[in-house]
């Protein structure tokens, strides 16, 4: 069993509108199984790896990732490889949640690698010691405390876009951009510009990522889900469109992907050191209209 540990943690309440999960992974990569495929989704991951480094497969040259990497919003699978034991503590941000926390984490602009900001260096050092002592949970708590501290200092809070992005999340990506703009009392162009400034991508791209992420979660936890029903449930009017979107994001058909998820989850189910959490606690299942009224009344996008 190459995955020795995988565990997800619910973030502290004050972080829940920005951070979806904390997670840890300890995995041994052996000769015949060294490839890791990262599927695009609607999250931005900050990954602290204190074990053997990953390298990016493809691209121009072999690139070894440093201890701290950020995986932004992908539109294609990202293939990594490693040999030996990786030891990861990671923060999974919502697309709109990463900016406020990460904008001062690095620096520089035209070299391939930059020094981590000193405040981050300290917390990463402490986490490294804890992980080497096999205390992943404490390492997660260390990073969580650090983020809570940062949260207090955050002045930047793009409320309108945060609200719009959450609305997309609640409706699992099934919202037309024009409707979203209407809800936010913005023109489509304004919405798109503000979205770009906060998340780095367009509302449409984020909606597609969220829809895919929702379908993937469904396949993980309901492996027998019917793909035709799933396509309709997630707003696809025809299978061809569903398959095309899936191929674009995963290089696989929904059927192939579903089968892989089933096999993976079957392996994980037998491993008590692998723990997934289902739907995040911050995303209750109320409808878009109600969500919007609440946001308006509180005036803070919560």
């Amino acid at each position: 069993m190459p995955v020795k540990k995988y565990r997800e943690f619910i973030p502290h309440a004050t972080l829940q509108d920005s951070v979806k999960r904390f997670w840890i992974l300890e995995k041994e990569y052996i000769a015949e199984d060294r490839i890791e495929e990262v599927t695009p989704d609607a999250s931005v991951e900050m990954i602290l790896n204190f074990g053997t480094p990953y390298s990016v497969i493809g691209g121009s040259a072999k690139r070894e990732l440093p201890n701290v990497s950020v995986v932004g919003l992908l539109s294609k699978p990202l293939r990594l490889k490693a040999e030996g034991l990786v030891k990861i503590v990671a923060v999974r941000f919502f697309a709109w949640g990463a900016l406020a926390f990460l904008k001062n984490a690095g620096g520089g602009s035209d070299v391939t690698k930059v020094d981590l900001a000193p405040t981050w260096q300290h917390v990463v050092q402490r986490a490294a010691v804890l992980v080497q002592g096999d205390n992943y949970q404490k390492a997660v708590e260390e990073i969580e405390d650090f983020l809570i501290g940062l949260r207090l200092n955050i002045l930047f809070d793009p409320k309108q876009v945060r609200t719009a992005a959450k609305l997309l999340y609640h409706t699992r990506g099934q919202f037309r951009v024009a409707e979203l703009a209407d809800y936010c009392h913005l023109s489509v162009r304004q919405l798109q510009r503000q979205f770009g400034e906060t998340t780095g991508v367009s509302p449409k791209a984020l909606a597609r990522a969220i829809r895919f992420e929702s379908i993937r979660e469904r396949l993980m936890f309901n492996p027998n889900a019917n793909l035709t029903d799933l396509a309709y449930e997630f707003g696809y009017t025809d299978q061809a469109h569903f398959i095309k979107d899936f191929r674009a994001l995963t290089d696989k058909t929904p059927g192939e992907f579903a089968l892989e998820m089933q096999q993976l989850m079957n392996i994980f189910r037998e491993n008590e050191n692998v723990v997934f959490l289902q739907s995040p606690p911050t995303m209750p299942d109320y409808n878009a209209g109600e969500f919007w009224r609440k946001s308006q009344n509180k005036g803070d996008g919560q």
Partner: protein
Amino acid sequence: MILNNLITSLLVKDYDEAISFYSGKLGFVVVEDAAMGPDR
């Protein structure tokens, strides 16, 4: 453990706007920017 490689990098794929966002606004450096064709 000595962290002699305590640096950040960023992985994004194919979104031009995301790349400029992360490398500009967040101060991260893009290490992976594979050209994946016009499809996006």
